[in-house]
């Protein structure tokens, strides 16, 4: 169980307002970490920080040697422009291999094999030749998840992966992610609004709550004051 990501005393600001202060947490190999928190608590800012798109005002984010930046798979939130994008499923999944190409312009046979493997793993083989824009929301998310797996097989970073999906597809998506974590030993970091499901599947929870953030195992979270608000006997939130 090696440490993959270690964050110490992080501080981030968003448009000159401090949203995250003195935040420390670690992600170990095999963990399933859910990052939850209200709107404006800094989830997206922290996401940008972890992906290296924004540097922290203070503190450090250390990636282990085995987890170079190029080995993180990322499932971003979909943009409206993507929904009618004319590309085949295979083209989209294969584009996940881009980061391993460096300056070499074309994909190798190995890249294509990895893309095929991930398409099979997510059960979307019959969609392979279809156009991305003709797929349902849940199918599109699977395709993007396959792309994320092509980019990194050690750790995947999921940014609200079930937004806009219906309850049945949402549950399928959660099971799929759970399988990847348990069977394929892929470390999962997920940003989510859905605290109930987070507690059901995740091994660790990071609840961003301004000065009083919580980080720990899911068991401890449910017992904590923050967790009690959602899982205990209805404490008033302002007391937390």
């Amino acid at each position, binding site marked *: 169980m090696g440490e993959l990501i270690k964050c110490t005393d992080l501080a981030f600001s968003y448009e000159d307002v401090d949203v995250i202060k003195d935040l420390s947490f670690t992600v170990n190999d095999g963990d399933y970490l859910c990052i939850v928190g209200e709107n404006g608590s800094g989830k997206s800012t922290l996401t940008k920080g972890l*992906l*290296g*798109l924004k540097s922290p005002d203070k503190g450090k984010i250390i990636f282990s040697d085995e987890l170079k*930046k*190029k080995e*993180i798979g*990322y499932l*971003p939130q979909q*943009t409206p*422009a*993507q929904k009618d*994008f*004319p*590309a*085949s499923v295979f*083209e*989209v999944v294969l*584009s*996940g291999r*881009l*980061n391993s*190409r460096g300056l070499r*312009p*074309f*994909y190798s046979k190995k890249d294509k094999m990895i893309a095929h493997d991930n398409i099979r793993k997510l059960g979307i083989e019959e969609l392979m030749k*279809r*156009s991305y*824009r*003709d797929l349902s929301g849940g199918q599109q998310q699977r395709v993007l998840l396959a*792309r994320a797996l092509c*980019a*990194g097989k050690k750790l995947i*970073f999921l940014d609200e992966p079930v937004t806009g999906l219906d309850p049945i597809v949402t549950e399928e998506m959660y099971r799929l992610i759970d399988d990847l974590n348990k069977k394929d030993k892929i470390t999962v970091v997920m940003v989510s609004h859905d605290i109930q499901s987070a507690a059901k599947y995740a091994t660790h929870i990071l609840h961003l709550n301004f000065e009083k953030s919580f980080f720990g195992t899911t068991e401890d979270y449910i017992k904590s004051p923050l967790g009690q608000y959602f899982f205990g006997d209805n404490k008033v939130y302002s007391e937390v």
Partner: protein
Amino acid sequence: MINDIIEMFSNDFMIRALIGGVLVSLCASLLGVSLVLKRYSMIGDGLSHVGFGSLAIASALGSAAPLQIAIPVVIIAAFFLLRLSGNSKVKGDAAIALISTSALAIGIIAASVSGLNTDINSYLFGSIIAMDKTDVIFCSVLSVFILIIFVFFYNKIFAVTFDENFAKATGTKAGVYNMIIALLTALTIVVGMKMMGSMLISSLIIFPAVISMRICSRFKTVIITSAAVSVVCFLIGLIASYSYSAPTGASIVVVNMIVLLIASLIGRFVKKRK
């Protein structure tokens, strides 16, 4: 018919218009796929107006080579528009409309004060005889450059067009590719403006991409079809405009429009059969 076409291209200016036009159509259609998919279509329109404004001012000031002045101005405007689109303070579409109408207004004032009416008309609506030798050489260099970029960086262009956030997060310098596309678009527009006119040049960027997206469902085929559609529409438009002595730019746009209608019908038919 064939004899007419042979006779048509016995004129030197027609040969130049043919070569220059095919190359500009090719460049614009390739760049157009990326711009349209990224919701940047209006950047082409904005840039052509800025191009017109700077050409008019340069001519009014008596510059011998107004294009040399227009090119850097349009390039700067391209970077500026790209940044604006990424910035949310003024919404991208409003910002582009503000810039393009301002540039147009300034250009018209400059032109009417200095009394350069014939030139201005050809900058606004294009002219088939406008392509000179330098333009043709410029187009050739530009299109070779664009083709090389699209072949060697095809996968990166796909990734950045499809999902900029993913590309950035996994270590592709998306910003650099956006800048390259903006720079090449600026160059294509300035050189294409002479023939198509600044009012109509953005159609070369938008129409072929939209047409090919109606009938193709893979990125690679969209790009190839877009280039082919653009060149064919240009040729039909050029021949039609010569035969019926209609304005070239406008004829090419009308051909594109008809092809778009046909492509939409085909696209709908194919979808129904699925």
